[in-house]
């Protein structure tokens, strides 16, 4: 059904989404914990910034990423001057784009899950002598587990489907940065419909499967 080029795109998409999700799970959970449990100045502003890519056009998100990580970017220039390497037009750029665009789904879902943990259970852990960290690891995260899994699965699905920010940051380099959505865009552009059909079908099935899993976990969140 899929030729070798399509399979390589699928593999690249899975690789990009997996690496992005790995970062999303750790950073997204930590951010969600901060937003849910700590009352600090600028909490809602931080939430807004982390959530913004959910509503911005991915091209705008991509634009900001170029400003930050491009060869002349705020972060990109010192990195390039120090190492001679730029993230632009690499598969890591696709990871970065997917990470930023999919992170809000994790943060939102995980924050809601952590906030729904019974406050008495958290207080009980504190009165039993356990630190904030131990309470987070032993009580809060296990009880928010289903929401965290749902967030991770949703983020993975979103990362798989990332297109706009990815094409701005990573471009469309065959065999290097052409993830499935980008490959489908190219095939449609060059009129190769039969190949595009197959990829679209495979992609829809994969995404649908992930949504189904996310819903199953999400619904049973305590």
């Amino acid at each position, binding site marked *: 059904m899929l030729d070798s080029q399509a399979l390589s795109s699928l593999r690249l998409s899975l690789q990009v989404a997996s690496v992005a999700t790995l970062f999303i799970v750790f950073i997204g959970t930590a951010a969600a914990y901060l937003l849910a449990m700590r009352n600090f100045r600028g909490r809602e502003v931080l939430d807004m910034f982390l959530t913004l890519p959910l509503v911005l056009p991915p091209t705008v998100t991509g634009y900001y990423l170029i400003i930050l990580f491009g060869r002349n970017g705020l972060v990109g220039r010192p990195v390039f001057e120090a190492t001679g390497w730029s993230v632009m037009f690499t598969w890591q750029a696709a990871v970065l784009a997917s990470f930023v665009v999919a992170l809000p789904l994790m943060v939102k879902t995980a924050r809601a899950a952590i906030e729904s943990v019974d406050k*008495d259970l958290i*207080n*009980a*852990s504190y*009165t*039993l002598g356990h630190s904030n960290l131990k309470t987070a690891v032993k009580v809060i995260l296990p009880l928010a587990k289903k929401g965290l899994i749902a967030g991770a699965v949703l983020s993975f699905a979103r990362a798989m489907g990332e297109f706009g920010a990815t094409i701005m940051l990573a471009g469309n380099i065959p065999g290097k940065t052409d993830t499935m959505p980008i490959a489908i865009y190219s095939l449609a552009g060059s009129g190769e419909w039969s190949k595009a059909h197959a990829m679209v079908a495979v992609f829809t099935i994969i995404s649908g499967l992930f949504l189904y899993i996310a819903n199953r976990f999400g619904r049973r969140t305590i």
Partner: protein
Amino acid sequence: MTLSISIRKQLGSFELDVSWEINNEFAVLFGHSGAGKSLTLQMIAGLIEPDQGVIKLDDLLFFDSASGKGLRPQDRRLGYVFQDLALFPHMTVQENILYGGCGISRTERLVRADNILRRFRIADLRDKLPAQISGGQKQRVALARALMRKPRVLLLDEPFSALDAAIRLEMVKLLKEVRHDFAIPVVMITHDLREARSLADRIFVYADGRIIRSVRPDEIILCPESGGVQDLLPSSIYRLQGHASALAFPYAGS
């Protein structure tokens, strides 16, 4: 040991302003819901900070607004049985109890948990989850967990409210045994005057964030003309006798 508190806290239009002191006694906080009883326990435990005041156990300051000194809930080492018990639903009975043994070596923790499981007659339930055991059993687990760390103070927020009469009686008995073993200040909230009378050394009657009475249980027994629990509360006295002067406790100081 002496637990003394003198605290003030403004929450919207409600103001809590109470002071009391107990030795190794069993104190009952008694009063309508919303009178500030649970709030008092939460402040002793360090879960809510008073606006002003001092909470101390002998010379150990739990909280002092003047000097800004205080201890985190983790460092106060007290046992707290929450109204909804707050058993960790993802841990077995044994895991719940072991979790209460913070700061104790693993070997000693296992031995202590084993003793306490047998002592509270819940050893058969050690591998069950809280959702799989009865209300009375949950109660035992919550109390056992609170005692694992050998607390300096025991706080009980309406611990028996969800139990039926027979099991309440059994729990009162267990609590008396616990008291005997742990000579520490105990503060319990209850709405049941019989329970209060059978357990308490001191009863503090709360109303609208103040203590309106402090009585000994025998003072209640001495007055058969009292109707029981309601007579301790001003609103009921208004209702029964229809005027504010009835606030004067009929048997105060007798």
